[in-house]
């Protein structure tokens, strides 16, 4: 296998109704992205548990994305508002783990915002590339 440039591994939690659809729309629009991101679908961003984010970092994620519907658009009224509150806790947790702030992002992306989704992935990947692999990544993991 040829030597390839290091690409970060990014875990993106997406809600079924908005940001997952945004990722789909990015595909339909053929908005090219680096092959860094693995999407995990949940019904609502409110389902995203700090446990999941923690685990992603411990398993080797170089960054984690928490995404959902725009405020006011959550399919379950206001799950994303609860996500927002939880996110503050996640940011603090990140700091305590000694991780750079750019390794965790929150973004609201609607099902039609394919280009926004792609731009987001492009931007985060570029930032994380600069940071290099996560210090929490277990040895030998890819």
């Amino acid at each position, binding site marked *: 296998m040829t030597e390839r440039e290091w690409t970060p591994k990014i875990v993106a939690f997406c809600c*079924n*109704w908005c940001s997952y659809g945004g990722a*789909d729309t990015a*595909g339909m629009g053929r908005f090219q992205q680096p*092959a860094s991101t*693995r999407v995990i679908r949940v019904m609502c961003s409110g389902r995203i548990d700090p446990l999941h984010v923690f685990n992603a970092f411990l398993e080797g994620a170089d960054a984690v994305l928490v995404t959902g519907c725009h405020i006011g658009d959550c399919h379950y009224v206001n*799950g994303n508002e609860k996500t927002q509150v939880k996110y503050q806790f996640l940011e603090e947790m990140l700091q305590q783990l000694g991780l750079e702030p750019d390794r965790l992002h929150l973004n609201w992306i609607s099902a*039609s915002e394919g280009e926004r989704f792609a731009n987001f992935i492009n931007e985060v990947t570029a930032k994380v590339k600069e940071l290099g692999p996560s210090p929490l990544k277990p040895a030998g993991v890819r």
Partner: protein
Amino acid sequence: MTQKETKTENKQEEELRIGAFICECGINIAGAVDCYAVADYISTLPNVTTSVVNKYTCSDAGQAEIKKAIKDLNLNRVLVASCTPKTHEPIFRACVEEAGVNPYLFEFVNIREHCSWIHMWEKEDATEKAKELVRMGVARAALLEPLESSEVPVTDAALVIGAGVTGMQAALDIADMGHKVYLVEQGPSIGGKMAQLDKTFPTNDCSICILGPKMVEVARNKNIEIMSYSEVVEVDGYVGNFKAKIKHKPRYLDINECTGCGLCTEKCPVEVPYTEFNEGIGARKAIYTPFPQAVPLRALVDKSICIDCGACIKACERGAIDMDQKETFSELDIGVIVVTAGFDVYDPEPKNEFGFGLYDNVITTMEFERLINASGPTMGKVVRPSDVKPPKRIGFVQCVGSRDKNSHIYCSSFCCMASLKNAQLLKEKYPDTEVYIMYMDMRTPFRMYEEYYNRARNMGIRFIRGRPAEVTENEDHNIIARIEDTLTNEIVNLELDLMVLSVGAVAPESTETVRQILKVSKAADGFMMEAHPKLKPVDTTLDGIFIGGMTQGPKDIPYSISQGSACAARATRFLAQGKALTEGITTKVDKDICVGCGVCVPMCPFQALSLENDKLKILTALCKGCGTCVAACPTGALEQSHFKNEQLLAQVKNVFAYGEV
């Protein structure tokens, strides 16, 4: 709620036998992903009994192969790696169910939208990523559990929001199929924008002459209950079982007593130089009927200008007027919802585009429709605003607020034809008038439309390819439009007596409110978004909610009416069957672990949770399966089915691997 019998033999104890089907989707996936390499890799993973590549997994042949493999190999988990679950999950769930596998034991992996289409030129990366995505899916599939969806009864009534031509058509069709319809219209009359138009392309028949009878038909239909001057303020529930709260705004008269005779209007001493129906042109009284063909033909009072003189109260022979009337509310039980809330025309005033708002003699096409209308404020005599004289040189400017990166990039689709129409009507009425159309491209698809364009050319209407770069006014209030004609490369200084801006369609504020109440997705252009741009043009991603007409994006009348009928057909499927299936995904509590802290209770937006004897109680019928409570529980007592922690964590874990894959 009745539980439907589904095949859910408990295969938990059985050996896991996963079948993985990797779709090439022609070259959509295979163009970037080496599907055979993916299948080879997947076959090495634990619990995978078979892993095969299909040309098109969703085709008849592909589905037959899945069913055959289930039978022959005794598969108890099925994974398909192809496109998006948003469109194809129901298809594959049904497929495995037919072969005896519980639909929730099916796992979907997206390697098209999320892989091949976004890494089109990185074959190696795309293939590696696809392997990982499928690996994540295999890990999750191993942990899936059978679930049952429940069958719920459907209330035999439809709510149609917005009574323009689209909503009227939807209401009529649903009603004619024998179902109750509540038709809610925010304005005082049904009819929408079409009621305001003069003639309609491509046949130039009078708009209200074809719409008026339809409006009467709606009013006469026994199954339709019109709720005019009303708005939807709350909607709860789910397919088959929605509850809607409707606000009825006060008209300040008893709609059952008023006959629309107009005696009150005659006597009212207050007049404003403004009419909604005539796009601001003309004047109306404080008590008025919206327009002569209004349905319902009832008056209403504009309280913002009423001086409480009581003249109307005296004039009304039926004692209908009630100045103390308050807004009222009704609560409706609804099975399905159709949203047909229409559009607004683009407003060029804030940016004074093409001098609009600065110069009197620059108007919009909508104003022009009222000016040339025989029952409009000028009785159909086209005059220009500055001096009320007939204009001799009139120019239409196309794509105002459309196809413009500074406002809206989309094409509003009807405005080329609308200007061709108005230009023709002018030429017919005033043959000596010089008529110009300033355009970027003339767009005239569909039957008789290109012919319509040719007719306009033959009538002597002049087409200038280019739009005014600069617009000024001279001392006679004539408009000077400076245009580069991109066909002749000449700069033209066109002097016009009247310039008409062919404004496009925009999504209105009022429909944004409805959109948020219903949680329908919004497309990039601001209009409501359909479930699939081709296959499900009037469905939304929400079961039992449909969209049609201008609500879904700019379109003309024939297209709007088709969508109105389409909405009716799609919605009536539920009403006719009288039942619907709901998702089996809900949340469950482990009472042994729950400590009764109550942290989860306020998390639920649907009041499904409460504490009972210091333990959590879940009203499953109210749970919509968002999982927000689960993420909040500090003890791990809650689990969301199909999105259990162990399932999600298995996915997370399998993003990563040691060494090469």
